[in-house]
């Protein structure tokens, strides 16, 4: 639904991102990207980018009424040698380079944060241990900004862990130098009342590899918007996601991969399980292959497993191709009920129903969990999935 507030012709900003701004993917946003919240009208809920989100549960993040409180969230960063961790002010030049806020809440976050964290991995540093960023909600309202930058040929794994209770809007920038390899596991394991809206911007350098694993379990409303663009040819991005949406929860993952540069690849796979009354999962997968992006190879997939009645999934893959000179492009989306035939098969081998369900759900998530590559995180996720299933029976 393209609305009346489309960008007027000729008003785009300079640079490659601006080309995206003229595309359908970008123009169905109600305002062009901006760091200033004043550039975005207060959403009323019928805009394409807000139509699935229950605005009344955003606790004022969208209309300016949410005000930061002193004890919003506590951020603790644990980093191995070779990593510089800094807390910087708003004027630091390293902020906001990977992307620009594309909706009002992201712009609100950018307009409202006071201090940002900048985590820098030195050029050619290969980290033996992950960088761990613990974001713990203390019950207040907070606006955040984090930058994770890898110098050329650096390799790092970052685990960002959200726990506790908070109303949090944030932007996270991932800046990958040439040949750098970054894996980010971002876990939303919030308490049940938390509200979390975040835009993740990755800018992938020449021949660099970016892997993102977004895991959402908790919260009342979680809306994560991972975005990827490429600074130079040869980059690859893998975006994986898992979510387990319970009764009453709204979990929304919106992705954009902007193939703005030739010979880059992307692979998106998000899987979710839902159970309980008014569990609502939203997945929007936008992939844009711009005219210049010859040799692009991309695939995106979303699968949802609905375990009970009363849950709702909105899954919208969207692939826009402006050049025919590509290596491959595809997308798939499927939402299915729990398969009774699978259950029958397993039970006919003596396996009790609850264990059979557990096997099927574990199996559903298995290939994605295996992508994480961090045994402690994998075990925690599996335990979490099991706990969610226990709660349902």
């Amino acid at each position, binding site marked *: 639904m393209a609305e009346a507030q489309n960008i007027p012709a000729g008003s785009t900003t300079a640079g490659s991102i601006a080309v995206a701004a003229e595309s359908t993917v970008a123009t169905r946003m109600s305002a062009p990207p901006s760091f200033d919240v004043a550039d975005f009208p207060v959403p009323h809920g019928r805009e394409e980018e807000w139509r699935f989100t229950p605005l009344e549960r955003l606790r004022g993040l969208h209309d300016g009424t949410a005000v930061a409180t002193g004890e919003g969230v506590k951020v603790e960063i644990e980093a191995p040698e070779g990593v510089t961790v800094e807390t910087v002010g708003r004027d630091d030049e390293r902020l906001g380079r990977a992307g620009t806020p594309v909706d009002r809440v992201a712009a609100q976050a950018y307009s409202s944060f006071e201090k940002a964290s900048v985590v820098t991995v030195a050029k050619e540093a290969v980290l033996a241990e992950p960088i761990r960023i613990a974001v713990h909600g203390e019950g207040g309202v907070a606006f955040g900004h984090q930058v994770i930058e890898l110098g050329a040929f650096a390799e790092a794994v970052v685990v960002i862990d959200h726990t506790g209770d908070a109303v949090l809007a944030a932007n996270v920038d991932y800046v990958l130098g040439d040949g750098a390899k970054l894996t980010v596991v971002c876990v939303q394991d919030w308490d049940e009342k938390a509200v979390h809206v975040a835009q993740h911007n990755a800018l992938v350098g020449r021949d660099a590899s970016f892997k993102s694993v977004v895991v959402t379990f908790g919260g009342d409303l979680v809306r994560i918007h991972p975005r990827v663009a490429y600074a130079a040819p040869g980059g690859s991005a893998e975006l994986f996601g898992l979510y387990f949406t319970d009764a009453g929860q709204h979990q929304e993952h919106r992705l954009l991969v902007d193939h703005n540069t030739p010979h880059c690849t992307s692979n998106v796979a998000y899987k979710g399980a839902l159970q309980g009354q008014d569990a609502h999962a939203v997945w929007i997968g936008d992939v844009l292959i711009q005219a210049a992006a010859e040799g692009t190879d991309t695939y995106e997939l979303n699968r949802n497993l609905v375990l009970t009645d009363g849950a709702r999934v909105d899954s919208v893959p969207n692939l826009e191709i402006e050049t025919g000179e590509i290596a491959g492009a595809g997308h798939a989306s499927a939402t299915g009920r729990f*398969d*009774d*035939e*699978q259950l*029958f*098969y*397993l*039970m*006919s*081998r*003596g*396996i*009790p*129903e609850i*264990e*059979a369900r557990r*096997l*099927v759900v*574990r*199996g*559903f*998530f*298995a*290939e994605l969990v295996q992508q994480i590559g961090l045994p402690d995180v994998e075990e925690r996720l599996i335990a979490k999935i099991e706990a969610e299933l226990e709660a349902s029976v």
Partner: protein
Amino acid sequence: MATLEIHDLHVSVEAENGPREILKGVDLTIKQGETHAVMGPNGSGKSTLAYSLAGHPKYTITGGTVTLDGEDVLEMSVDERARAGVFLAMQYPVEVPGVSVSNFLRTSATAVRGEAPKLRTWVKEVKEAMEKLHMDPAFAERNVNEGFSGGEKKRHEILQLELLKPKIAILDETDSGLDVDALRIVSEGVNRVRETGEVGTLLITHYTRILRYIKPDFVHVFANGRIVESGGAELADQLENEGYDKYVKGGASA
């Protein structure tokens, strides 16, 4: 000695215009050590019999009894039936993505045996059973039935039969879709289990081909939802020569 007794079994399925009766009074008794072949034309209700005994929720029992050593099988849930010793080798085994064969087999054996098999002996047991069925060891790491060929699916079913050692094995069209080599390998697996004398076998088939490898003690002709004739192995030869025509009047096999 384990005995499965089916008495006057009536089974319906939900059809568009209300329930439709598929089984119309089946009587059959299978004792440990015996092999019964149930043969019949397509649509006669053979598979319904198999799935009803295993407890598939699609089928509604409207009358009759099924007991295993006097215990009411129809009262049991699907998994309870399996643990009581009823095994169904399916014609169309289901894919379970993300669940490896080795995990599945061990979970299943643990459930049926009531305790987890000791890891060392278990690994050996599975390995030997797979070798006998000419299965590559890599097979154990694949996901259950995912991307299996027809022959691999059936071997996997018989592998489970060998490992779970049921009292009553129901083989639903295990021969369908198999080439001669695969049929021989699968039949040898069934025969190994039969030779223990510990299992009663209900072999459901459309064709007589598999009976060259698995010699039945009894042959039953199934038509229009019930057993219409019973005899020894010679009845299979008669069916081979004459087909099912004399049992199917007025297109009742539809």
